[in-house]
């Protein structure tokens, strides 16, 4: 059996879980074994229909009245118990922070190795994975040892297959699983929440990101970037140099230790393009680099480039956009 960890909204698997399911289905076909899923939380069983469409035969739901909200230690312990009972060939989690955290708990409880951020898995003697290092700047081919192979799929490394609606007619079999938990296992749980600021464009979801790097030169130098971002309905993102200098808050940092962006256009101003920055901008559909250095990595990897000082180029672009309206 191949077992996939599902995160869901009222049963419907989210995007990253669909990526894990897609890898799980391929692996189930390659090993000639059934595909199972496991999920926790309100409405988990409602996933039986859509999951059948993704090839899932059985959905295991982790059931405990105390699991009213995310509690990684308790859920991880429950998942580990389910896995030790079912003994699947492999367990696959998605690329979310939570899925990786839960799989780490499963690894810790079972003593099994975990290959995080995998892009490919090949059953055999031994099983092998390809996984991301350095945020994806480097790939590692590795053995995946253990009687049960644990892995997570790197976010957006696998194109999720469409779920066929035919499955809704014959939903996956739901098997509730009551883990053996103590109150102490619930010591790590969400105790409160702070809502997101309303009306703010999220960097991860922005359609246009105007990026600033060392070349901006100062905190004040960002006025033109802010203005262009506002004109285009986008938001500002920055390189690590900028946050380390205190010019902008870390929440605006794009890169390996910041936010991964996926805009239609990334306008990178005065950013050289270090690999740690580029992994955060990899999903941009197009890049416009504005840079004085024609040979900067950002320029050579861009779709479009303007060679010049951003402080003279940006005002010209801003007034040209205003005129064009």
């Amino acid at each position, binding site marked *: 059996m191949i077992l996939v960890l599902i995160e869901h909204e009222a049963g419907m698997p989210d995007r990253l879980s669909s990526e894990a399911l897609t890898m799980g289905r391929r692996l189930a076909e390659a090993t000639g074994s059934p595909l199972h899923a496991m999920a926790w939380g309100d409405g988990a069983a409602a996933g039986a229909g859509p999951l059948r469409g993704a090839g899932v035969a059985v959905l295991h739901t982790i059931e405990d009245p105390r699991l009213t909200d*995310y509690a990684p230690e308790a859920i991880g312990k429950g998942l580990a118990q389910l896995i030790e009972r079912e003994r699947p060939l492999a367990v696959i989690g998605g690329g979310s*922070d939570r899925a*990786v*955290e839960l799989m*780490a708990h499963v*690894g*810790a409880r079972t*003593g099994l190795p*975990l290959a*995080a951020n995998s892009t490919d898995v090949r059953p055999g003697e031994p099983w092998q994975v390809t*996984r991301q*290092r*350095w945020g994806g*700047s*480097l*790939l*590692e*081919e*590795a*053995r995946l*040892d253990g009687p049960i192979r644990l892995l*997570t799929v790197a976010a957006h490394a696998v194109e999720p297959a469409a779920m066929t609606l035919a499955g809704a007619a014959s939903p996956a079999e739901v098997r509730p699983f009551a883990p053996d938990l103590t109150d102490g296992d619930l*010591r*790590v749980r969400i*105790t*409160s*929440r*702070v809502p*997101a600021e309303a009306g703010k464009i*999220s960097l991860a979801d922005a*359609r246009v990101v105007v990026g600033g790097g060392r070349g901006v030169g100062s905190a004040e130098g960002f006025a033109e970037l802010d203005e262009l971002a506002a004109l*285009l*309905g986008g938001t500002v993102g920055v390189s690590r140099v900028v946050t*380390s200098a205190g010019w902008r808050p*870390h929440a605006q*940092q794009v890169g390996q*230790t*910041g936010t991964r962006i996926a805009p*239609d*256009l990334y306008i990178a101003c005065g950013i050289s393009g*270090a*690999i*740690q920055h580029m992994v955060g901008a990899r999903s941009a559909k*197009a890049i*416009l680099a504005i840079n004085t250095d*024609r040979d900067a990595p950002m*320029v*050579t*990897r861009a779709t*479009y*480039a*303007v*060679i*010049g000082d951003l402080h003279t*180029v940006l005002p*010209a672009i801003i*007034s040209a*956009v205003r005129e*064009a*309206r």
Partner: protein
Amino acid sequence: MNILVCVKRVPATAGKITLTADEQAIDTRYLGFTVSPHEECAVEEAVRIVEAQGGTSTVLTLGPEEATDQLREAMAVGIDRAMLLQTDGGEWDAVATAGAIVDAIRAREAVDGPYDLVLLGNEAADTGDYQVGVRVAVALDRPAVTGAKGLEVRDDAVVARREAASGGWEVYEIPRPAVVTVKEGINLPRYPSVPGRLRARKKEIERVTLDPAAASPARIRLRVPVEKESAVEILGEGPEAAPRVVEVFRRLGLIA
């Protein structure tokens, strides 16, 4: 307050990564070394907590003799003590790394009493395993929060907050002692001062020699991903390029 912070020596890559001929490692002949940005922030957080509440901070690393550079960097910004779990330079997998850290913690705690807080980075910059902190916590039966971007240590509890996938924050209040992995952005690390560096150079480093047989890396080989060929279209030089930029905005549907 007794705080342990774990860091890892990694090459300071910036441009294109070059591998050794046997594809087993990054060619570091022309590179400096550093720790992950997450870990720099973990070190800063430990220093701040001890500055505010008193106590002792200790930095630990698992790595070769040269990793004492990274321990001294941490001491230069205010960490009190350092511990090197010394390897022969080979890579250690996450299970073995967590095991060695747990052994070291147990040995130290038997002498000095428990660490109220063990801090790590959310993931190492190089291997990106995302699991050593959780493995350490589970082995020690301590609560763990990962990916914290806010931290408050109270007398009886640790309050950590992390970004929610849908925006906003999740807050976790957990009992002490605890394990917390942090992300860059939790603070803005300070730069070491010259007196700080001088002090750090004189400090002693406790050493534990590890058995290389425990390392068990799963690596077969490394490879640099093939980059998408991009033929950059130069729109022009200086402000004169603005009309062509506007054309691009139009083509992409960003302006009417």
